[in-house]
C-alpha cells in the first residue's frame, strides 16, 4: 500500500521531469519590422536563441516551469517578459522591441558626403533619431529644430549658431538637404519645412558651422541633412492620427474667438519590398485652425519613394514629395491688446501654394575602393498670395551632382564632385530672373598619424544671377579630429564660406503692408565668411558625455534687410559682422535606456561691427534641457528651452515714424516647457503607440519675431499603428 501511495505521489513529478517544450515567437520593432539577430534568453538558464531574418525564434527543449524571457538587440531597448509558464500549452509570443538612440561610436553619418563615424568628424554635429519626432508629435520639421542646442528658429527661418536673423525665410544660410540633395526654392531660397516627410526619416544630421567647402553657397551657416529610411524588410503600413486643442489665451482680452481652437492630422504610409524594389507611398493631411485669427492652414502632402537594387552594391533611389497648402497670411499682430489678431487691412489675406520636389540618385560601386553617385533633382514652387493685390511666383530649379568617393589607401579617403544648378522664376514680386550656379569640390581625409584624422576641403563656385555680373568663390577648409585620450576627442576647423544673394534678395519689389515696400537692389553682392571652431568631447563614463565648442565667424558683406531713407525695405550688404560663441552639451544616462538627461547651453555674441551693436534676432544666452524616462513600455519626457531677451530687432518697423508693428518692441526672455507621456502596446499583435503631448504648459507668451506671439499652451493626442 505504501508503495502504491509513493507511486501515486511521484508519478506527476516523473511525468513532468524530463518533459520539455518550446517557446516560439517573433521579435519585431515598434515599427513592425522584424528584428534580426535579437538575443532571447531565459533568465538564469542556458536556454536561448537568436531571431532569424524574419525575426522568428524558437527556444527548444525547455523543461516545464516558470521563466523570465529576456529579449535584447543592439539599437533596441531590452525587454523582459516575466513569468512565462512553459508547459504543453505554451503559446507563441510577439515581442516588440523599442528602437533606442545609438551610442556615439555606432552612428554613421554622411553629411560630409562620405560615410564616417560620428566620433571621427571634425565639426560639431548633432544627430536626431526619428523616435524623438514621433514621441513629441512634431507636426512640422521646424518644430523639432527648436529643441536642438545651437539651432534657433525665428518663425520659419532656421539659424545655426546665429547665422541668420529673420527675413521671412528669404536667403537661408543653412542648407537643408534630403539624402544630400538641397531643398531650397529657386526664387527666394527658403525652405518649406512641411514638404519634409517626417514618417520617412531615418535620421537627421545637423552640422553646426560653415560647410561651403562641400555644399557651396547656402551652407555658410551649417547643414541639415535628412536621411530617409532604407528599404523595409517586410511590408508595413503605418497609420498615424493626432488631434489637438489650443488652450484659451492667458489674457482675456486676447480671446478673440471664445472657442477652443483645434488642429488635427492623419497620415497613411505603406512601405513594401520585392526582390529588388523597395517602395514607400505616403499621404498626409494636416489641418490647423491656429490660436491666431487668419493664421489657419490646410495642407496635403504626398510622398513617393522607390529604391531599386541593380546589384547588391548598385542602386537607384527616386523620391518625390508634393505639398499643397492653403493658409491664412498672418504677418503682424494688430497691437499688444490684440496680440492674436492681425492688422485690420491684413485680415483675410491668404496664400495658396503647391510644391513638388523630386530627386533621383544613382549609386554605383566600381570596386571596394571606388564608388560614385549621380544626384539629380527638380524643385518646382508656386504660390499666389491674395490680399489687396495678388502676389505670385513660380520657380523651377534643376540640380545635378556627380560625386565620387575613393579610398586611396588605409589612410586616405578622397571625395570629389561636380555640381550645377539652374532656376528660372516668373513672378510679379521677384521679377523674372534666371539663376545659374556651378561648383567643383574636393575633400581629402587623412588618417596617417596615430589618433589624428585630418581633412582638407576646397570648393570653387561660379554664380550668375540673371543680368548681374557672375561671381566666383573659392572656399577652403581644414579640420582635425584628435583622440587625446580614450575618453577625450578634440576637434577643430578653420574655413571660409560664401553665400550668393538669392534672386528674391536682389530683385524683390513689392508692398509688404502698411504702405511699406520692398525695393530691389541690383548692387547686392555675395557675403563671405571666415570661421573657426575648436571643440572637445569628453566621455566621463559610459553614461556621461560632455561636449564643448568655441566658435567664431567673421562675415564680410553680410546681407541683411534694412530700411531705406525712402521708407522701403531693401537687402543690403553690411560691411562686417562677427559672431562668437560657446556651446556646451551634457548627456547623462542616469539609467541606461531608461532615464536620460540632456542639457545644452549656448552663449552667442553676434555684433554688427560697423554699427557696433548686436545683430538682430540673436539671443545671447540659450538653454535646452531634455529629460526622457522610458520605463518598460511607457515614455515620459520633459523638454525645456530658454532664450534670453533678444537685444536687437527691426527697430525701424517698430518705432516711430513708421511704427508698422504697433507695440512691436514688446519681447521677453523665452521659457517654454513641454511634457510628453506615451505608451507602447500591442493590439491584435500589431505594435501601437499613443502619446499625449502638452506644449508650452505654463502658457507663457513670447515672440520669436516682432508682433508674432508663439504658440500658446496646446495639448495633443496622437496614435500610431504599424500593421
Amino acid at each position: 500500500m505504501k508503495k502504491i501511495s509513493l507511486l501515486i505521489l511521484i508519478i506527476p513529478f516523473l511525468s513532468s521531469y524530463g518533459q520539455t517544450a518550446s517557446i516560439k515567437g517573433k521579435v519585431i520593432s515598434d515599427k513592425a519590422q522584424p528584428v534580426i539577430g535579437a538575443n532571447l534568453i531565459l533568465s538564469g538558464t542556458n536556454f536561448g536563441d537568436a531571431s532569424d531574418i524574419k525575426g522568428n525564434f524558437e527556444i527548444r527543449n525547455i523543461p516545464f516551469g516558470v521563466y523570465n524571457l529576456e529579449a535584447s538587440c543592439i539599437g533596441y531597448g531590452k525587454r523582459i517578459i516575466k513569468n512565462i509558464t512553459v508547459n504543453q500549452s505554451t503559446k507563441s509570443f510577439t515581442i516588440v522591441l523599442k528602437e533606442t538612440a545609438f551610442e556615439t561610436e555606432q552612428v554613421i553619418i554622411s553629411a560630409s558626403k562620405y560615410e564616417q563615424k560620428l566620433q571621427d568628424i571634425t565639426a560639431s554635429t548633432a544627430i536626431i533619431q526619428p523616435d524623438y519626432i514621433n514621441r513629441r508629435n512634431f507636426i512640422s520639421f521646424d518644430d523639432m529644430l527648436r529643441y536642438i542646442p545651437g539651432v534657433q528658429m525665428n518663425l520659419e527661418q532656421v539659424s545655426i549658431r546665429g547665422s541668420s536673423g529673420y527675413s521671412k525665410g528669404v536667403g537661408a544660410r543653412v542648407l537643408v538637404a534630403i539624402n544630400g540633395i538641397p531643398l531650397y526654392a529657386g526664387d527666394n531660397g527658403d525652405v518649406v519645412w512641411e514638404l519634409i516627410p517626417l514618417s520617412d526619416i531615418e535620421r537627421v544630421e545637423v552640422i553646426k558651422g560653415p560647410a561651403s567647402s562641400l555644399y557651396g553657397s547656402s551652407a555658410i551657416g551649417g547643414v541639415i541633412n535628412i536621411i530617409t529610411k532604407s528599404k523595409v524588410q517586410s511590408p508595413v503600413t503605418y497609420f498615424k492620427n493626432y488631434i489637438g486643442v489650443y488652450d484659451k489665451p492667458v489674457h482675456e482680452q486676447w480671446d478673440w474667438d471664445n472657442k477652443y481652437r483645434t488642429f488635427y492630422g492623419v497620415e497613411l504610409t505603406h512601405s513594401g519590398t520585392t526582390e529588388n524594389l523597395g517602395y514607400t507611398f505616403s499621404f498626409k493631411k494636416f489641418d490647423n485652425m491656429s490660436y491666431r485669427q487668419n493664421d489657419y492652414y490646410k495642407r496635403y502632402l504626398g510622398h513617393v519613394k522607390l529604391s531599386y537594387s541593380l546589384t547588391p552594391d548598385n542602386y537607384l533611389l527616386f523620391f518625390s514629395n508634393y505639398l499643397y497648402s492653403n493658409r491664412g497670411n498672418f504677418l503682424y499682430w494688430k497691437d499688444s491688446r490684440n496680440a492674436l489678431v492681425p492688422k485690420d487691412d491684413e485680415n483675410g489675406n491668404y496664400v495658396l501654394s503647391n510644391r513638388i520636389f523630386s530627386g533621383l540618385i544613382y549609386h554605383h560601386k566600381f570596386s571596394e575602393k571606388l564608388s560614385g553617385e549621380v544626384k539629380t533633382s527638380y524643385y518646382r514652387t508656386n504660390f499666389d498670395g491674395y490680399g489687396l493685390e495678388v502676389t505670385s511666383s513660380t520657380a523651377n530649379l534643376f540640380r545635378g551632382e556627380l560625386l565620387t568617393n575613393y579610398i586611396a589607401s588605409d589612410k586616405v579617403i578622397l571625395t570629389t564632385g561636380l555640381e550645377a544648378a539652374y532656376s528660372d522664376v516668373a513672378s510679379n514680386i521677384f521679377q523674372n530672373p534666371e539663376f545659374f550656379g556651378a561648383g567643383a569640390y574636393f575633400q581629402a581625409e587623412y588618417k596617417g598619424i596615430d589618433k589624428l584624422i585630418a581633412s582638407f576641403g576646397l570648393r570653387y563656385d561660379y554664380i550668375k544671377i540673371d543680368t548681374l555680373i557672375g561671381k566666383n568663390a573659392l572656399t577652403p577648409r581644414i579640420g582635425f579630429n584628435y583622440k587625446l585620450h580614450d575618453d577625450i576627442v578634440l576637434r577643430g576647423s578653420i574655413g571660409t564660406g560664401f553665400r550668393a544673394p538669392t534672386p528674391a534678395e536682389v530683385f524683390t519689389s513689392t508692398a509688404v503692408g502698411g504702405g511699406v515696400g520692398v525695393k530691389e537692389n541690383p548692387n547686392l553682392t555675395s557675403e563671405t565668411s571666415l570661421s573657426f571652431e575648436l571643440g572637445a568631447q569628453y566621455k566621463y563614463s559610459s553614461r556621461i558625455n560632455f561636449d564643448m565648442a568655441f566658435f567664431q565667424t567673421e562675415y564680410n558683406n553680410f546681407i541683411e534687410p534694412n530700411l531705406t531713407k525712402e521708407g522701403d525695405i531693401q537687402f543690403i550688404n553690411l560691411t562686417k559682422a562677427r559672431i562668437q560663441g560657446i556651446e556646451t552639451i551634457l548627456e547623462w544616462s542616469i539609467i541606461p535606456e531608461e532615464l536620460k538627461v540632456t542639457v545644452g547651453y549656448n552663449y552667442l555674441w553676434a555684433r554688427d561691427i560697423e554699427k557696433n551693436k548686436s545683430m538682430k534676432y540673436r539671443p545671447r544666452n540659450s538653454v535646452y534641457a531634455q529629460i526622457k524616462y522610458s520605463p518598460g513600455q511607457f515614455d515620459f519626457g520633459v523638454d525645456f528651452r530658454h532664450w534670453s531677451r533678444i537685444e536687437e530687432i527691426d527697430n525701424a518697423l517698430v518705432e516711430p515714424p513708421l511704427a508698422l508693428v504697433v507695440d512691436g518692441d514688446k519681447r521677453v526672455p523665452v521659457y517654454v516647457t513641454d511634457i510628453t507621456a506615451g505608451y507602447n502596446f500591442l493590439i491584435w499583435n500589431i505594435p501601437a503607440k499613443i502619446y499625449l503631448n502638452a506644449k508650452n504648459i505654463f502658457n507663457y507668451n513670447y515672440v520669436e519675431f516682432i508682433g508674432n506671439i508663439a504658440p500658446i499652451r496646446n495639448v495633443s493626442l496622437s496614435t500610431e499603428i504599424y500593421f
Partner: protein
Amino acid sequence: MHKYFFAFVLAVLFCLNSCDTGIEPGEPIVPGGFSGTVTFSGTWPEGIKRTHLVVFKNPIQTTEDFFLPNLSFVVDSIPYKSSFYKFDSLEMSFVSILQLWPGEYKYVVVAQSKTPEISFQRKDWTVVGVYCINNDQSKPASLVIRSDQVTPNVNINVDFNNPPPQPPM
C-alpha cells in the same frame, strides 16, 4: 526615486515659469498731431516745386538724418507763393505711413525743393524756416506730441530775406 526626480524637475520649471506670463497687453498709445500757421515774408524763390512742413525726431547731424527714420512727419505741400498756411497735421499728412507718435520732436522746419520729382538727396532741399525759441532760428524748439491730442500754436515764420542756418549738406 524616478518619480521624485521628475516631480522635482517639474517643480523647478514651474517656479521658473510661474513668475510671469511673458508678454502682456500694453496701454493703448494713439498718435497725436499738431496745428498752427506758417507765415511767409519776403519774395519766394523762383522754381520752387514743393514746400513742406517737416518734423524730425532729432536734430540733423548728418545728411542721412534728413530722411527716414529720423524724418517723422511731412505736412501736405504748401502752395507756391502763399503768404500764410494754416495746417492741422491730422488732416494734412503727406506721407500716409508716417504718424506722429507721442514724444518729443526736436527739429521742425519748412523745407523747399526745386527738383521735379521728390528727391532723397539732402542737397536738393533748403530749410527756409524753423520752429524756434523767441524767433531765433538758430535755436530750434521741441515739439511735444501727446497721445490722442493736438498740440496747437506751432507757428513758424519764414523770412526769405533771413534764412535760417542750414543743417549739414
